[in-house]
């Protein structure tokens, strides 16, 4: 369900990552001063900057902190919040908390998978959507919940899905 993503061998990238992103990350690390125990915080920041945590970014962090890259990867692969794959322009998150589950979120995510023709944690062919099942976001009163990027759609029913997808598809074109 809300697993960390599958472990694959190192990826190849088409384009180099922007230099200024690395500068921003480096500045964050330097401003931090004492970096002992700060790995997770830095990874959050890096994911915020780059959108995901590609190998080069993890390696960059390992070297800046003077810790083994294996340690960084061990942490990245442990936590489901971190992703090593680029994400689509929009992320559709379906809450899989209990309250949402008993109100049908499992069906909602299945329909999304069918409609977008992807599995969870995958990106659509056009790069527009990433589908994610997420852990309870604590808004159980509104279950079942779908979040697109930061917008919450409360009490979603199967017939709403097309509309949700359409809203963001037209934007993407």
């Amino acid at each position, binding site marked *: *369900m*809300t*697993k*960390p993503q599958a472990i694959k061998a190192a990826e190849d990238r088409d384009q180099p990552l922007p230099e200024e992103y690395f500068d921003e990350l480096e500045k964050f690390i330097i401003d931090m001063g004492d970096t*002992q*125990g*700060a*790995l*997770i*915080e830095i*990874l*959050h920041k890096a994911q915020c900057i780059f959108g995901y945590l590609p190998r080069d970014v993890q390696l960059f962090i390992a070297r800046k902190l003077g810790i083994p890259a294996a*340690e960084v990867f*061990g*942490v990245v692969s*442990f*936590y*489901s*919040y*971190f992703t090593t794959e680029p994400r689509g322009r929009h992320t559709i998150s379906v809450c*899989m*908390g*209990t*309250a949402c*589950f*008993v*109100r049908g979120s499992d069906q909602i995510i299945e329909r999304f998978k069918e409609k977008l023709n992807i599995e969870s944690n995958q990106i659509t062919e056009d790069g527009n959507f990433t589908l994610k099942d*997420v*852990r*309870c*976001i*604590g*808004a*159980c*009163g*509104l*279950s079942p*919940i779908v979040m697109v990027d930061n917008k*919450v759609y*409360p009490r979603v029913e199967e017939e709403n899905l097309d509309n949700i997808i359409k809203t963001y598809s037209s934007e993407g074109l």
Partner: protein
Amino acid sequence: MKICSLDDLSKIRNDRRSLNSRINGRSIEDRIEILVGLATCGISSGAKETQLAFENEIKEKNFKNISVIPVGCIGNCYSEPTVQINVPGQSPVIYGRVHVQDVPEIIEKHIRDGIPVDRLALTNPVDNKQMRIALRHCGLINPEDIFEYLACDGYEALGCAVTQMSPEFIIDEVKKSGLRGRGGGGFPTGVKWEITRAQPGERKYIICNADEGDPGAFMDRSILEGDPHCVLEAMAIGGYALGADQGIIYIRAEYPLAVSRLNTAISQARKLGLLGPNIFGSNFNFDIRIKYGAGAFVCGEETALINSCEGKRGEPNFKPPYPAQKGYWGYPTCVNNVETFANIAPIITKGSSWFASIGTEKSKGTKVFALAGKINNVGLAEVPMGITLRELIYEIGGGIRDGHKFKAIQTGGPSGGVISEEYLDTPIDYDNLIEIGSMMGSGGMIVMDETDNMVNIAKFYLEFSMDESCGRCTPCRIGTKRMYEIINKITSGKGTMADLNSLKQLTYMVRDSSLCGLGQSAPNPVISTMKHFMSEYLAFIPDPRAKLKFNVNKHSRKSKKAD
């Protein structure tokens, strides 16, 4: 400006007297207050738009003496956005599902003409059963304004503690109050503080566990979003009591609003000198940092949480050594849950005997429950320990949705068990829940009706535990997987009686042999559904002859013995 003494504090409070009356359910003389619930649920339902509409409408109609105040979760999550209107001389009215288009009507009828809009008003017959200690300010004060917190006696407890009380006295008070950990374990908080205080160590830490991972529980989020200062104040009191000058709040990254409100609160408290060096002019120094989780349920376990705080993989360690002996970077560390902290200040100001007078013999005080699932009034309820499930579900929760029939309630999330109808009149406390095969957990309660299949429910929780297993120990890493596979086989109609049997054996083994609480409690949903709803398991087994041979009662009695 810094607050350096209790006098400074009371001066500020006197300037803001008005608020105290709000807390007591009134408005001050000529002022109408519109409280808009702006917690995550509210905002996602459009509460910000509602708030804006009120403000515009008031400006347009040129009303004076009306304030619109953003507050935290009012508790009626099923009817967000929620708005509470306090008119002087009248009892407050709570409206539910107030959208932009409803605003003019409320303004015209209620504010101008003094007639409440019945269409939107929530009838809450339940409030007499509720008793708000941890949620005392939630939905009543602006969580982003420290002065509102100060006005309702905020930081009074801390001020008294550091200027008038010895650490030993505070620990004793907390012990005498009978407060037990609200994260689920139920360990006496005072004792935890005492043990940590007794440890040698040049440095100690106090950590607030805000990694509310239990699916279907959101009380900690509500407290942090609605009243962040009450946690900061309690952490400082705890730090003073056990000799820590640094506090850490470990919070889920999935709670951005709570994070931002905590950050606001921390910087406000620092500005007033309520965090930092020489608090209240004493020589007690204390400050708080925030550490973020990254999506791992197991980090709610205290040793895993500490590892995660240190920036490592959130795997739990064997205890002993306990965190109190060897915690964050090896220093004595005390980990308490958000709701536990929320109870501290009232214990200090009102005394342990007041707190101990609430609740049952072994479980004192109140508990916040997050009611969800097939229930009418989804939301938060804080009730005294000892209330029955029936009261909680039918009186506070408003009964089962859509006229369906109650079937079971799951408490304690994936770590707890299901409770069937026969136990509805059991008074809820830590020990009773364990007795009937579940646990308090963090207080999430998911109600199920007759349309829910209990085997599927068990499978859902098992899948959760399996996915969230850190993988460190064999029983949890492989055992939860195998249990899930068996139950999956059963629900797909391919199971046999032998599968049921091996599932049962596996549940006991995983429970007895796992390293941490996650693994030890992961089989609970299966154990409890097998106990109460074996017929639903049997219904999935295709071979009827085998079914006849299987004597449910005999089997369960036997396994109890082995147990």
